């Protein structure tokens, strides 16, 4: 009389190591070096007072805010790791694929790890112009 209930738990997460080997990550590194590195620096630590860190940054926990800021830029005060920054990041003019690529790079470099590959479709869906 007992019904067998099968519960499948798929290992749906991808290790950061795999994201680092993706084409998106490689392209994202090029985008980072062209558009982001000058301010956020090669080590992702940013510049004190001026540009917030991307390495171990609590801002990146909000993936939607992260993607939105990369796509449309930022204006006004934000708090990163308890420190207030009040500046402007001009929109970089990146297309959705480039936004996805550089997000994958940022989320999986300098000790950062994510379990989900960001795609162009997700960028389209998640972002709204401020």
């Amino acid at each position, binding site marked *: 009389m007992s019904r067998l209930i099968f519960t499948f738990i798929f290992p749906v997460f991808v290790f950061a190591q795999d994201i680092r080997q993706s084409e998106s990550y490689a392209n994202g590194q090029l985008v980072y070096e062209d558009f982001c590195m000058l301010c956020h620096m*090669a080590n992702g630590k940013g510049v004190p007072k001026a540009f917030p860190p991307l390495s171990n940054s609590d801002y990146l926990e909000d993936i939607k805010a992260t993607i939105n800021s990369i796509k449309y830029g930022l204006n006004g005060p934000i708090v990163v790791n308890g420190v207030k920054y009040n500046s402007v990041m001009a929109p970089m003019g990146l297309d959705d694929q480039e936004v996805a690529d550089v997000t994958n790079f940022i989320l999986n470099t300098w000790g950062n790890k994510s379990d989900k590959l960001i795609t162009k479709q997700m960028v389209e869906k998640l972002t709204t112009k401020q």
Partner: protein
Amino acid sequence: MLPDYSLLITEKSGSMIHFKEGIKYEISNIPQTYLRGQGGLMGIALHPDFANNKRIYFTQSSSVDSDEEGGNTALFSATLSDDELTDVKLLYKALPNTRVGRHFGSRIVFDNEGYLYFSVGDRGRRDDNPQDLTRDGGKVYRLHDDGTIPSDNPFVETDGAVKAVFSYGHRNPQGMVRHPETGAIWTHEHGPLGGDEINIVRAGANYGWPKITYGKNYSGTTITKDTALPGMEQPLYYWIPSIAPSGMAFVSGEVYPEWEGSLLVGSLKFEYLERLVIENNKVIYREKVAEDIGRVRDVIMGMDGYIYLAVENKGVYKIVPKT
């Protein structure tokens, strides 16, 4: 600054503002800016005879003059009629268009003979552009005010060379000024990690990037072991660490007697204005002015005798001595 002491201001986003008697007027009919990375509406200058002909010059990142995707630095002239641009002319467009987002230059200065100089950065292709005279990028250019190429430009006789080139081997010059006494054209340029430079540009001279530099890659690795090579100019001065120089002006006039002759340079990175005292082409003194004011994008010596600073995301400041 215009003869009536109002200000013409370019915004990275592509708009131009006429600031007159405390009110901002938006200038219309600006050509479309290719907005990507560091690109935007950038340099602006008045024709030496602006009081009569109302011509202005400006540089922007632009996609015009090519079917290729992307953009590169373009130089335009136009007539300022009330708050509208008319008779807009494309005088020069660097090619090829590229989606690379960095190092567009670009500043515009006239010398005492009426030649127009403007800069284009290396467009992120340091191994291809700055040392190759057949390619745009990493150059200072010299034109007549109507965009034609002076017959005495240094490379007009050189096969395949871009004839508008005046000097080469530059990285990303975002400061340019005419020396008030000698009339020479001074530039500064962003180095990579370290090695921002001040140069006096001379016809046909090679300023060395990236064959020689006092800087390193952003990652800290070496670009080249050479800081000097035959046939390449040494900078008048170099900054280590980089201050990220932007904007350049010599102090002259009656308002700042203690600063007379000083060179002012904005620092994007450390958010101050730097004052340099230069004697016999050597920097003998440096000091910070307006510390923590913000990212200084431009500095000018106004016709009214006052120094004006453009600070990113804040606005334009005027330096008034304490009485």
